[in-house]
């Protein structure tokens, strides 16, 4: 072998070695600009109200992760450029399907990827993220943020966005289940809006098959979406809550606060399951494959006499371009029950002054604050400047100047959560509500919010697994007819017990009691 050949080989070897060394060397880290100390960083309020000349977040880009639009993400996308003009911070809104959101947030945060600076998600999840230090404690930010007008946020939503006395997310939406009904159809049939779930079934049965929108085809008595991985796991609690919880909000409908045993294997939950399934008899034939968008669309098309939904239907119903139920839509607090659960025996007992201290006309209501409304949290692992900008953006979205305009528009998916938004009815009338419609819609939400027996959504660690995984799967099998009502209760009970044991029974019980205000 001649030397030339050997040299070529040597050179090749050196090149390969060089490439390997380069590949294995960590990428050069650009010199970071000195960060402003956290304590002295101006809070978001300043950013939101600062004059364009003072753009304090020039050069900062924030990535916000949320649920795929058109609702929820739409206001963020629409107001992003306004926020940029005000503060200089560029806002990227990244959207994923609702069912992927929890996993996406946790994967991003726990793997250290930190691709997102803020998350707009379910505030009930903060109990998973906050103890792990994955999201920023926003209490100091809120304290300095006068424009946020924190005291104007209804007390329930302030509390729902806090964990262990600290604020971890900023609400932009307030969520409460309500029942909507067709004023004209019920009136024509001589029926009253339902006060109990039995009334609901009776009204649905009476109006099912009638032509409710004058198109010559028979319509439905009730539209409640029941597709798996959608919203069915929330509807069931709206039905079950008045059967289970009767002694005030601090009682809670999910677990027995003595030993953390699930309250899903008793006559009350059985009745709720039966009611839920029976609503399907008076609904569209493919209801088991419908999401809330489908049932909402059917109601707005005038095809349903009753439906259950968050506050969204109110503003959507007044949209003359897309709604056939303008001024025909009534909203009421969720129906209740004349019988409630005896927690010791697991049987249903009639309502009286002792068993149902908050009953109205002998009916126990427990309106369910399902989901709790969309709220913004800030990733704790990103640069302080980005944290500030992300907080500033959420604050900007939540401030009355923006929020009062967004909550009156149906397409935003945002519902009122501020005291001022309930009081200022003119904003609703300006948006197209009639005085009567505004009164009824807002009083429906207020009545629920002010009910001392209101049931809050589950807010303990692994609530996603309890509700959105196990309950969703077992409930959808029940609706599909794969499980009997007793099998459903047994399977749910066992699976929830397993989750509780895995997570630590005492720890879960402490959390649960904490969220109910018990000691």
């Amino acid at each position: 072998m001649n030397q030339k050949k050997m040299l070529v080989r040597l050179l090749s070897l050196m090149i390969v070695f060089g490439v390997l060394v380069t590949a294995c060397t960590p990428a050069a880290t650009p010199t970071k600009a000195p960060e402003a100390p956290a304590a002295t960083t101006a809070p978001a309020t300043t950013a939101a109200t600062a004059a364009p000349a003072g753009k304090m977040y020039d050069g900062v880009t924030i990535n916000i992760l949320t649920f795929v639009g058109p609702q929820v993400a739409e206001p963020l996308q629409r107001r992003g450029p306004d926020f940029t003009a005000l503060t200089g911070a560029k806002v990227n809104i990244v959207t994923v399907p609702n069912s992927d959101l929890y996993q996406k947030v946790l994967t991003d945060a726990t793997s250290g990827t930190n691709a997102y600076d803020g998350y707009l998600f379910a505030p009930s999840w903060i109990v998973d993220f906050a103890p792990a230090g994955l999201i920023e404690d926003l209490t100091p930010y809120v304290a300095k943020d006068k424009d946020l007008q924190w005291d104007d946020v209804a007390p329930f939503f302030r509390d729902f966005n806090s964990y262990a006395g600290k604020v971890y997310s900023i609400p932009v939406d307030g969520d409460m289940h309500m029942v909507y009904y067709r004023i004209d159809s019920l009136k024509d049939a001589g029926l009253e809006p339902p006060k109990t779930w039995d009334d609901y079934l009776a009204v649905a049965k009476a109006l099912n098959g009638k032509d409710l929108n004058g198109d010559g085809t028979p319509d439905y008595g009730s539209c409640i979406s029941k597709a798996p991985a959608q919203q069915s796991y929330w509807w069931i609690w709206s039905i079950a809550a008045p059967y289970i919880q009767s002694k005030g909000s601090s009682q809670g409908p999910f677990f027995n606060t003595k030993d953390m045993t699930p309250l899903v294997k008793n006559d009350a939950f059985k009745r709720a399951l039966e009611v839920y399934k029976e609503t399907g008899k008076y609904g569209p034939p493919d209801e088991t494959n419908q999401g809330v968008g489908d049932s909402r669309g059917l109601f707005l098309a005038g095809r349903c006499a009753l439906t259950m939904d968050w506050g969204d239907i109110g503003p959507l119903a007044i949209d003359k371009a897309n709604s056939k139920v303008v001024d025909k839509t009534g909203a009421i607090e969720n129906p209740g029950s004349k019988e409630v659960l005896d927690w010791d025996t697991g049987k249903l007992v009639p309502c009286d002054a002792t068993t149902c201290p908050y009953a109205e006309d002998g009916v126990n209501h427990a309106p369910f604050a399902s989901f709790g409304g969309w709220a913004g949290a800030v990733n704790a692992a990103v640069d302080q400047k980005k944290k500030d900008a992300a907080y500033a953006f959420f604050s900007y979205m939540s401030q009355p100047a923006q929020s009062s305009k967004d909550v009156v528009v149906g397409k935003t998916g945002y519902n009122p959560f501020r005291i001022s938004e309930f009081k200022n009815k003119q904003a609703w009338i300006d948006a197209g509500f009639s005085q009567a419609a505004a009164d009824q819609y807002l009083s429906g939400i207020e009545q629920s919010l002010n009910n001392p027996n209101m049931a809050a959504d589950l807010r303990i660690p692994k609530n996603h697994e309890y509700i959105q995984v196990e309950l969703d799967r077992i409930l959808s099998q029940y609706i599909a007819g794969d499980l009997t009502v007793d099998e459903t209760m047994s399977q749910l009970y066992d699976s929830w017990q397993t989750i509780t044991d895995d997570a630590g029974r005492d720890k879960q019980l402490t959390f649960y009691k904490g969220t109910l205000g018990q000691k």
Partner: protein
Amino acid sequence: MGWALSLFIELVLMNTQTEEPLESLEPEPSRLHTIISTAERMAGNVFILPAVLALLFLSVFPLLTSLYISLAKFDIAPGGYKLTFVGLNNYKKLFVGSERDYFLGKFVPSTLLGTVILGIVVIALAVFLARYFLTTKISIGGLIGRLLITVGLGALTWMYVHTIGNDGRLGTVGVTLLYVFVGISLQYIIGLSLAMLTVQQLPGRRFFRVLFLLPMMITPVGIAYMFRMLTDTSKGPFTPIWQGLGLINFSWVNNAWGARTAILIADVWQWTPFMFIVLVAALESQSVEPIEAATVDGASTWQIFQNITWPAILPVSMTLILIRLIEAFKIIDLPNVMTNGGPGTATQSLTYQAYIDWRALNIGASAAVAYMLLFLVTFFAMIFVNMIRHRAVETL
């Protein structure tokens, strides 16, 4: 990982051996020569090292890591996450725990028909084993393979006859196998029929070839949405027909078998073109002389197909089915978009179950399901490859 390391060591040894004579040609090596010859000895190893490392990092390590994860529990912890070793808990949950009905199905006493089918399968498997013992020279590998096949197929048949009918319910294993075997059979039969048709000298055959290929060019999610729309009896394009038939209050995808049929129809529509195009190529590449000779000898069309065409396209068909078999086990897009896995869990596949667990951050459970899927794919692929090998041996 073991085989990769042994390959690497073997390469090192080979290089060392081949370079020895070169060294001996240098009677008094200078310093430069020593360096060069050392570098030369190492060159082969260094050149192959990136490929070996890539293989280890991208394939072997993830496989081992996921095996460990399937034996662990994932929890969020301050600053990130922690994995706690839980032994076989995740697998236990699938076979005897809270997820048994979901994974294997809801077991009920079999029907009379089911018992008869189980009896036939058991007898067939017993004959299969007996033939091996009586007619073939027994080897350890062959014996283990046959025992695995017998136990595996027997267990799967038992599972089916105890989950179909009465109040039983198929689990994700049963649903996946249904998608795979029914789907592939239909795709092959339709694909072959269309291929046979378009190799005839018929007018417009080129147009139809392109037309039949179209579904393959559409994204699977698009196909799923299209079929979701088609099966929607209250808003879809077939609504007027549905109404005209007086079925306004009936949805055929509202029950388990209707929904599974809808998924199968969409899957067949999506994948038949793949079978079609490969089979067209196979049919066109066969030699025309034997067919002409057979025609002259007065053979019927069926005889020509059975004795000439079928053996000619068999190797391609086997490969085609093997590729689809491996691919079909991973079905998730259609049930996810068309039915959300419903009604209940009726249309969920194994991949869908793993995805739901992963989405809920039950990473351990998700990995356990994925490993069971890997086991099933390997099991059926192994049977199929053995069938091909036997066929090849018989042909030779």
